């Protein structure tokens, strides 16, 4: 399947179809499957870097602005941070954990 297109000009926001909670320093994300029973869910968690990005996904801040903010906080080249951010967003979009809001 083709990776979802991520644009630095877009804003992103957590989907209504997930529940998240910080547990032991990581953000744990559970998709709402709406099913009955005890089948395994596709649990997803975000480490420290992912958590920093997650907290900035407010639907109003563009990805470009998020990269800029992270450059101020983390000691890494901008192109590396940009790659990490777009990579994570591709995965979050593919899993329908976030939705796009064009700026």
């Amino acid at each position: 399947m083709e990776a979802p297109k991520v644009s630095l000009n877009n804003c992103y926001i957590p989907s209504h179809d997930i529940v998240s909670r910080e547990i032991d320093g990581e953000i744990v994300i559970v998709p709402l499957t709406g099913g009955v029973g005890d089948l395994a869910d596709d649990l997803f968690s975000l480490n420290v870097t992912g958590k920093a990005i997650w907290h900035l996904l407010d639907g109003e801040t563009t990805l470009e602005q998020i990269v800029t903010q992270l450059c101020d906080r983390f000691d890494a080249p901008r192109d590396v941070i940009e790659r990490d951010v777009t990579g994570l967003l591709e995965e979050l979009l593919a899993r329908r954990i976030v939705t796009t809001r064009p700026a």
Partner: protein
Amino acid sequence: MGQKKEYVFSIADIAILVGSEMTIKDDTFALKLRPFRTDNLSTDLLCVMHHTGYATDFILPQTQCVYDMPPWKIYRNGDNITYCEGYSPTGDYIGLLKAVWSNDYRNGHIFHPSPKKWLNGNIEALTAMTTDQILVASLLSDRNGFLLHSGGMKLWDKGFVFIGASDAGKSTTVEMLQQHGEILCDDRIAVRNIDGEQRIYGTWFHGTCPQVSPASAPLRALCFIEQSDRNEAILITDRQEILRRLLPRIVKPLADAEWWAKTLATVDELIRTVPAYVLRRDLSGKVVDVLRNL
């Protein structure tokens, strides 16, 4: 002497008053449920009423369908949750209303168009449905608890749960340990946080052990079982790993955002306070010595 029309059962400190328009005989419900009968009407009481005939007093809901998997369709409509046995054997939707619950599951009405199942007896669920686990899992989420797909035992007044997939050997493990304590269940265990103490409780759901206990005990360890040629317990220090192992084993009733938020908070507290182990065990039964030292 009049015919018995109601019994009270207790599970995880919740009392369930079961009433019926039909006589409830000693063998109406399966033998496995009998130890859960009680005379103690706790303050946390819910009522399940069985009716004969069709649900003529209730209107089939036209609102949000929250579950649709044959044979069931489940709707939430304002104050009620309604269960419809939606499909005929040929797959046609027939929408026969079988149960109506209040949103908090405190009051339920079950309808029996035919009394045959009731009269045959040996029913394995108080709701007379396939299982009571969805009801109890829903109740527990409002009470700092959840239902865990696991075996559980009370050993030396301490609670142990044995967690694993369906073929991991949960039943074998509890049967091996039976002589040392009480089997709470070999397939579903209720977990509750009562005033800061994590406790486990027996249930009658699923499993193959014919005798299970309604007892409870403070939870001493979460044991993720592995079949092995030796007996040892390896402490899991990474809480994310515990979470990844635990969450898929939690019974999820109509798992909406509210249920998940409450359950994640309960699980978060649990894994902070109760140690988790990979429990490797052979078939000798010597794993009891490992557990004694936890």
